[in-house]
């Protein structure tokens, strides 16, 4: 073995070693997408309304308030970011009740007290606290408290409406319509709606975080429950293992010794793919798993090309050495051309695809590169080693 070849062998061993180090323990090293671990992906847009136009300041305040609300939902690693000028992207991994989460995040939550003529007497702008609780009948209620300014306004409003209804509305919808018995000067009040326990909790949360300064619209919401995520992972793994086994067997039966080498290269290729995913901190999505499974098939493609070529060369009664060299050099161009076109498609997909599909483009690209490397470098080194130690005849 000359030094160039030794270097190749060392390079291969090192890359396998690095891949293994990078990818274990698998559960911690591979970042799962929302579709696999469960969670919500919510894209919001601030929309203009006649009396509340959207400006940069308003979007920032919306961002702040939504962050506040999400914090109170108790999601472990939320991601909240501005997306362009008016959009806000919220990702909530592992959120337990996506429905309520979406509702809470997108709600304007403008609290108003309206007199019997429907005029707004005051809003929730001066609230300093809001808390869920129960009244003496055990019904869920929300206790609110105004700051000094708010307390003054509230005292005024209750004084004006003694004996009349002072309706409490949220975003224009009536929550309750109590009759004011006497002026309230303490700045404290309770809202007794027809709440469930969760309903009271959510209202309190919304009132604490404050109303959004502009209307917010949900452009896109994709939520996956934790059960489906786990199910997707186990189905993906099953499909992958079956695909892998089928191919390992096929190659072994059809190409015998060559097939064994291809199988070995395929397993190295898989290790490299997983290692690269972990090393690049790429997010694995369900389509991403499909991409890996697809690569299993494509990875042996290059090996098949090479082996078919070598077989042809052998039929021309060339020596083993010469057949290997000719097989590789003739197949190389084809392998390159064929893989570059798939790579072009994958790159286009990466740039234009959305969330989960990007995951597919990533695993497909990594898979193509890893499979080219294993076919051209790893397979060749193994073939040469085998040809040197034994005769190539053992392979056929």
């Amino acid at each position, binding site marked *: 073995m000359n030094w160039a070849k030794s270097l190749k062998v060392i390079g291969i061993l090192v890359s396998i070693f690095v891949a293994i180090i990078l990818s274990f323990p698998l559960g911690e090293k591979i970042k799962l997408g929302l579709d696999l671990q469960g969670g919500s992906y919510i*894209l919001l*847009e601030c929309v203009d309304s006649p009396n509340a136009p959207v400006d940069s300041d308003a979007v920032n305040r919306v961002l702040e308030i939504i962050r506040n609300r999400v914090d109170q939902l108790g999601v472990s690693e939320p991601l909240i970011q501005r997306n362009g000028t008016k959009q806000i992207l919220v990702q909530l991994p592992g959120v337990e009740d*996506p*429905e*309520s989460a979406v*509702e809470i995040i997108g709600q304007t939550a403008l609290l108003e007290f309206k007199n019997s003529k429907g005029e707004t007497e005051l809003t929730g702008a001066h609230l300093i606290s809001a808390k869920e609780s129960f009244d003496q009948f055990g019904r869920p209620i929300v206790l609110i408290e105004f700051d000094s300014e708010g307390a003054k306004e509230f005292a005024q409003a209750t004084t004006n409406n003694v004996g009349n209804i002072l309706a409490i509305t949220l975003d224009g919808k009536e929550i309750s319509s109590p009759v004011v018995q006497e002026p309230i000067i303490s700045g404290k009040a309770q809202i007794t709606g027809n709440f469930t326990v969760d309903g009271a909790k959510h209202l309190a949360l919304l009132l604490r975080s404050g109303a959004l300064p502009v209307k917010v*619209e*949900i452009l*896109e*919401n*994709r*939520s*996956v*429950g934790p*059960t*489906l995520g786990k199910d997707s992972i186990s*189905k*993906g793994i*099953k*499909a*992958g293992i*079956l*695909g*892998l086994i*089928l*191919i390992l067997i*096929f*190659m072994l039966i059809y190409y015998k010794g060559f097939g064994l080498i291809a199988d070995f290269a395929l397993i190295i290729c898989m290790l490299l793919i997983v290692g690269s995913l972990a090393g690049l901190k790429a997010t694995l999505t*369900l*389509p991403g798993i*499909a991409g890996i*499974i*697809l690569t299993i*098939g494509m990875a*042996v*493609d290059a090996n*098949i*090309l090479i082996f*078919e070529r070598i077989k042809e060369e052998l039929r021309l009664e060339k020596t083993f050495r*010469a057949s290997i*060299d000719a097989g590789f*050099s*003739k197949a190389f161009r084809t392998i390159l*051309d*064929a*893989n*570059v*076109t*798939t790579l*072009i*498609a994958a*790159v*286009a*997909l990466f740039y*234009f*695809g*959305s969330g*989960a*599909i990007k995951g*597919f483009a990533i695993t497909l690209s990594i898979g193509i590169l890893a499979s080219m490397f294993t076919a051209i470098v790893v397979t060749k080194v193994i073939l040469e080693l085998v040809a040197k130690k034994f005769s190539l005849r053992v392979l056929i």
Partner: protein
Amino acid sequence: MDLFKGKSFDFVKNRKLFYTIAALLILIGVISIIFQGFNFGIDFAGGTLLQIKFAEPVSTEAVRNILASLNLGRSTIQNLAEDEFVVRMERIEPESIKEILTSFRAKLAGLELLREETVGPVIGESLKKMAIYALFIAFLGIILYITIRFEFKYSIVSMLALMHDCLIVIGLFSLLQKEITVSIIAAILTIVGYSLNNSIVVLDRLRENIKLKTRETFENLINLSINQSLSRTINTSLTTILPILAIYFLGGSILSDFALALLIGMIAGTYSSIFLASPLLLEWNKIFKVEQRGINKRAKKTDKE
């Protein structure tokens, strides 16, 4: 083991038949596309999708009745398992979704919301635009690449083969009224990349044979090239199709349509790379009156013997 050893098929002689089969399949798809159009999923059309699972078997009727009572009787209901459904409807607000779930919980046992997707019209439009851009860029990039590496006419016949593959897939999806989602676009792009792979291998072989065997007619060279790469074409298609079948059968409902698109595309791609791509070169030569045989100089020896 070598199934195709020593066998030689005449692909050129029967090429009219192969063209006709391809044309017929495409025609059926195109007719369906014209008259039925596509069933765009909520990714593109906008809307709300709910995937729900009950604690015990539930009939589609029961699900439909509850939806109808909420004025959502026009929703499409897909039965995944006897206790699991996918419901698609026009876009509704989060509070309406809560209402639906509450009604389900009140009338049917043990509801679990597995997945919820709501896509507004703005996103649908922008996704459509992105899908078209992605397809356009991929096509353009690939034509450029093949033109640089081969000749222009090679890229034209590979493109024709490619369009055949894509048309068969989208035609079938229209015919079966299967949903066109973002994943289906991803599948089509993968086919674009991969199907070319097969055509390129055959064309590459042809190009090599043109240089090496200068006394053969072009017809013979085409036959020779297809036959020489036949076992490779079939085997790599098979090794790609095996994992796709695994995804189709074991990968779950979310991936099954994606796998179906890939499967059809790969089969169509194998067909076009064997029966269409190189024979079409012959038509090109006839149309543009190119007299083609192997080039009459001694080919350079590239083998390191």
